[in-house]
């Protein structure tokens, strides 16, 4: 219920420019908007800021009680020490390869599927769509053992025979790291929802011009849902970049491991090296923040903006 109340107030604060003196009203609502956004931004960012500050503290500072907000001594060396604690360059490269592959494959295959499910209905397409939604509902921890077994018994790989016996299948290979997570039902679902509302006239006109269905998808419709592509790209990249358990399970050699596995070095059975963990996590998060800053640029044409102009 709270949801409705909150959304109901938004148009008033942001959009309502009807008033006696439109210019001053607009300025006032602008100021209010900045204040509200700043408060929200602060709440969202405080834990991140705390993380960065902790990454710059010495062990004695971390032990200070009550804790100090700023480090008394800026321990920049934490970053060098954290990076030296594990082969992070290799780990980051592996994570990057996985995240980029996942993003590229997901964008292509999931958007095709999402488009077809939205616009090219066929017998059973509704069922297929529901299947994708249902696929989202399986908890990771339920799938993980069977998925592991599929990887391990993958026929004709890693010394396995045609029945998948005898070897190790895809274990400890890039296949295992990339293929199982390459296409997500989440992305198929999201793309479908975005393709749903495009005007049908464009599609019809292109069809009359003799453009193939694949061409309509790739050249006509897809450019209209760029924000969906950016969203899927950001989210796919983010989740494979932050993935931990699956890469740990299916690899054995250190050179195949990923960045989150590297970060687990700082949390052992009875100790957590906070400064290093936070330094490592900060470094691991920065690429994502940069990507987001780049990606969000494409979210520019706001209807609110159009209304205010």
């Amino acid at each position, binding site marked *: 219920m709270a949801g409705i109340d909150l959304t109901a107030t938004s148009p008033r604060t942001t959009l309502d420019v009807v008033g006696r003196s439109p210019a001053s009203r607009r300025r006032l609502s602008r100021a209010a908007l900045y204040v509200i956004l700043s408060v929200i931004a602060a709440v969202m960012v405080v834990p991140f800021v705390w993380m960065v500050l902790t990454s710059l503290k010495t062990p*004695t500072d971390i032990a200070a009680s009550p804790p100090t907000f700023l480090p008394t001594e800026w321990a920049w060396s934490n970053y060098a020490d954290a990076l030296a604690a594990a082969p992070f360059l290799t780990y980051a490269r592996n994570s990057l390869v996985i995240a980029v592959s996942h993003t590229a494959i997901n964008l292509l295959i999931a958007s095709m599927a999402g488009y077809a499910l939205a616009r090219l209905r066929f017998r059973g397409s509704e069922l297929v769509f529901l299947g994708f939604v249902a696929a989202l509902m399986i908890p990771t921890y339920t799938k993980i053992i069977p998925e592991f077994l599929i990887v*391990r018994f993958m026929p004709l790989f890693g010394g396995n025979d045609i029945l998948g016996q005898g070897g*190790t299948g895809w274990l400890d290979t890039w296949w295992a790291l990339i293929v199982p997570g390459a296409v997500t039902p989440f992305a198929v679902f999201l793309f479908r929802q975005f393709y749903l509302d495009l005007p049908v006239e464009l599609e019809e006109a292109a069809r009359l011009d003799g453009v193939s269905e694949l061409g309509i998808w790739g050249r006509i419709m897809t450019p209209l849902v760029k924000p969906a592509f950016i969203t899927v790209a950001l989210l796919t990249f983010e989740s494979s970049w932050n993935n931990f358990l699956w890469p740990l399970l299916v690899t*054995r050699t250190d050179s195949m491991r990923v960045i989150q596995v590297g970060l687990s*070095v700082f949390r*052992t059975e009875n100790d957590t090296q*906070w400064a290093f963990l936070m330094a490592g996590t900060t470094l691991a998060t920065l690429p994502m923040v940069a990507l987001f800053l780049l990606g969000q640029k494409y979210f520019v044409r706001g209807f609110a903006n159009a209304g205010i102009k």
Partner: protein
Amino acid sequence: MELSRRSFLTAMGLGTATVVAGCSTTNGATSPAADPTGPVAGDITFLCALFEGTTGKETLEGNLLKQFNEKYPDVNVTVDYTDYGSLNEKITTGLASGLMPDVVTLGVGWIPPFAYKNAIAPLPESLATRYTYEERVLEPSRFDGQLYALPMVLDTRIVAYRKDFFEEAGITDTPKDWAELREIAKELTVRDGGTVTRVGFDPFSIDLRQCWETFLFGNSGELFSADGREVLFDSPEGVASLQLFLDMVADGSADFALTTEAGQPTTLQQGTSAIMMTNNSLYVQLQQQSPELVDKIGTFVLGNTTPAMLQGGTMVSQSATSKNPAAARALVEFMGSPDAVLVASEQRGSVPAILDLKDSDYVKSNPMVEFAINNLDKARSEGGTPAWMEIREKIKPTLETAIVGQQSAQQAIDQLAGIANDAIARL
């Protein structure tokens, strides 16, 4: 259309069958114990929850395994590093797929379940007498009288206290039993107005399960019967061990909300507790975070009727399905040797499991480790039943119901005993 649909379903069915069948390809109860008489050669995998990070890898592969390979040049060891938190997942998937690593590190309490289900191979008794071990230390490595693992590093739960607070209050001796503990804790509790600013005793910063077990053993209680088939903790001793928490919370000398996370400064360092249950790794933490407190913190072993110190730790075992059992056995023996045990302990500030290492520089340099190794005769371990994995997870939440006041100590212990009996009955 029909045809493709049928072949499609067939392919699906086959895939599923492979997966389900995959679940059955595990060693199971039928496989014979690995025969270690073959040549000490071949490729083996070592699933290792120790030696993390660059320095750990350098120690293990750059130093230890080099020595091992000098002795056994035909063995090729692949180390699969994992963090302790994911060890379960690694072992579960390994077992499910029939690719259990040849050599694995396991925790205390894991041996009976794994040995019972024939997942790990028995070791010759001679390995138990090769070096000097405290018999208590080997207890968790045994099942049904057989040795299944070699202990490497131990982590003990000890009691640490602030000497300066004791001095201020004029207390000269550490408590001999619970009555004295409660007296001292009450005396050392500091209140500012209505709120407690320092508790006398902090039992909540270590895992509740382990703390309760420490009290239970210190009260001459037992978890299970020797064969692991009977619950013994629902005795008056077990109930009293839980009641101790409740009593101390009730009189304000302990506080359930006052805990710290691993790596955070402990309540003892913050001065918000005077006595706390802790781990011997506290010493390393003190050196890093509060060097000024190093001399102000003392340790003792608590007991009510008998002093008891809970022992956790990491052991090394051999898979029952190893294809190169002789090589796997050789690696287990090597990882259990003083050379490997010492560097492993040193890397994580733990207690070496071999008594011969008492005089090593490392032990001499770490007073809490030295304290623990000198008290290993009082060490007790959790587990002891093949159903331990199931029971273990239920202990903390069930005991908590009493701590937060949902039911009495007796009721909580009875409930836990019921859960444990069910788990044992499922064996």
